[in-house]
């Protein structure tokens, strides 16, 4: 430090009173006990963003010294006691003289700064932030106010289960992975078949014969290393459904048969997990969100499965390859909305899409008070799942 700097320091020290870390800690503790009406001390961290991100005193405001004059307006009351701190106690002294010039009456600098605070073993918090790579990868999300860094962290913390890595699960899983959903579970016991590749874009020609869950994991991990993929190479049944769905926040239902849909519906009701439901047939698709006890459930919509003749999913019904892409991505969209808590989820509404007509339609769905699963006297734990409906092989 040169003579000129030392002189500025000496002057600042004469002007700005200093408190020890212990005194700051005690004053904040007293204020905390006094309750919200007695908030006379404001703690301001004047360090740079990267220093703040590595840890700061709980309850402090962050106003980097470079923006002090512009951002200190966060403390509009100039009669409050403003306690400033930096890393070592020098920048906070300088900042103190600035605040005095701006008319703040009680400005204090914490001696020794955050270094001394930590050295005394006093409490601090480490805010969660995106890494530099994540900030780049998700920059188009960060630009959307409804998502932002907070929303992106929600997505990274989210756990989404895909029932099936097939026609609907492929596009849904692919885009959810791109969006940065941190944990994606995939339950699928099938292997990749050549006939899947017309629509199941998580898989490819080289992976024919591999387990779909494993193939999906390879594709997703190559797209986004932030995503942890958990594979469940088994069929969803009475013995495993409760255990598997317990670990997830949202379930994306892309199954191909009625027994699994009823089974999942009842288990999701018991575990109180939302199910984003999609189905496709030839040129048409359906989509809705079953949110337990807030809207209808699958059994309110379809109390019983259709007979075999009307259940074409069991036979080779056929589907336009791009159609599950559309419905699966609408499922992914609803999932992101549920995770972020934004917009109007498709609860109590059935969206239908007719690709040939190029038409979307919407039907209102109602909770059935007499529903055997979610109604007033419902018992989701002991209902039939109609396993016999799909008794004939696909």
């Amino acid at each position, binding site marked *: 430090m040169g003579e000129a700097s030392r002189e500025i320091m000496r002057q600042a020290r004469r002007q700005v009173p200093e408190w020890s870390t212990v005194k700051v800690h005690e004053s904040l503790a007293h204020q905390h006990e006094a309750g919200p009406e007695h908030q006379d001390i404001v703690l301001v961290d004047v360090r740079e963003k990267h220093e703040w991100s590595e840890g700061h005193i709980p309850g402090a405001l962050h106003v980097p010294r470079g923006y002090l004059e512009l951002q200190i307006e966060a403390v509009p009351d100039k009669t409050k006691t403003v306690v400033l701190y930096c890393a070592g106690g020098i920048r906070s002294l300088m900042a103190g003289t600035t605040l005095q010039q701006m008319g703040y009456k009680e400005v204090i600098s914490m001696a020794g700064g955050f270094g001394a605070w930590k050295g005394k073993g006093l409490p601090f918090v480490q805010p969660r932030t995106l890494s530099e790579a994540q900030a780049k990868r998700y920059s188009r999300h960060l630009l959307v106010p409804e998502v932002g860094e907070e929303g992106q962290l929600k997505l990274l913390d989210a756990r989404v289960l895909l029932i*099936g890595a*097939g*026609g*609907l*699960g492929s596009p849904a899983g692919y885009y959810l992975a791109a969006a940065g959903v941190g944990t994606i579970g995939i339950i699928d016991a099938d292997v990749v078949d050549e006939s*899947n590749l017309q629509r*199941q874009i998580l898989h490819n020609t080289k992976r024919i014969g591999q387990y779909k869950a494993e193939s999906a994991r390879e594709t997703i991990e190559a797209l986004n290393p932030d995503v942890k993929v958990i594979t469940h190479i088994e069929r969803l049944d009475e013995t495993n459904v409760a255990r598997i769905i317990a670990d997830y926040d949202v379930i994306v*239902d*892309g*199954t*191909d*048969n*009625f027994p699994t*849909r009823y089974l999942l519906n009842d288990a999701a009701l018991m575990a109180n997990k939302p199910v984003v439901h*999609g*189905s*496709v*047939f*030839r*040129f*048409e698709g*359906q989509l809705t969100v079953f949110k337990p006890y807030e809207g209808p459930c699958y059994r309110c*919509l*379809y*109390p*019983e*499965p*259709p*007979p075999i*003749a*009307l*259940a*074409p*999913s*069991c036979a080779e*019904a056929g*589907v336009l390859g791009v159609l*599950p892409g559309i419905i699966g991505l609408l499922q992914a969209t609803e999932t992101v909305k549920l995770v972020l808590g934004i917009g109007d989820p498709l609860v109590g509404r059935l969206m*239908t899409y007719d690709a040939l*007509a190029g038409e979307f*339609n*919407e*039907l*209102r*769905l*109602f909770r*059935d008070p007499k529903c055997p699963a979610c109604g007033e006297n419902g018992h989701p734990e002991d209902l039939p799942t109609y396993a016999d409906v799909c008794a004939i092989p696909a």
Partner: protein
Amino acid sequence: MATVRLAPVLRPSVGGAKQVNAQGSNLSEVLADLYSRYPSLKEQIQPEESLSRFINVYVNDQDVRFLQGLETGVGPNDTVILLPAMAGGR
């Protein structure tokens, strides 16, 4: 005449049409008119007296189970939708 829209799986029963017209002042009469012309449709959606539980019927986008069921009134400009459950996902 009311318009009746059919889910894809039901269309073979009416000769492949996506929608057909039918006469009647309530749902029961509208369906009876359809069955007289397309008998196989009755087997598919109403083999017994009451409406099947695996098929949803909407009059102007409202589920008739929460209206008056087969007695729900149907006007000449109304649209009836017949929608059985779909399961396909793969």
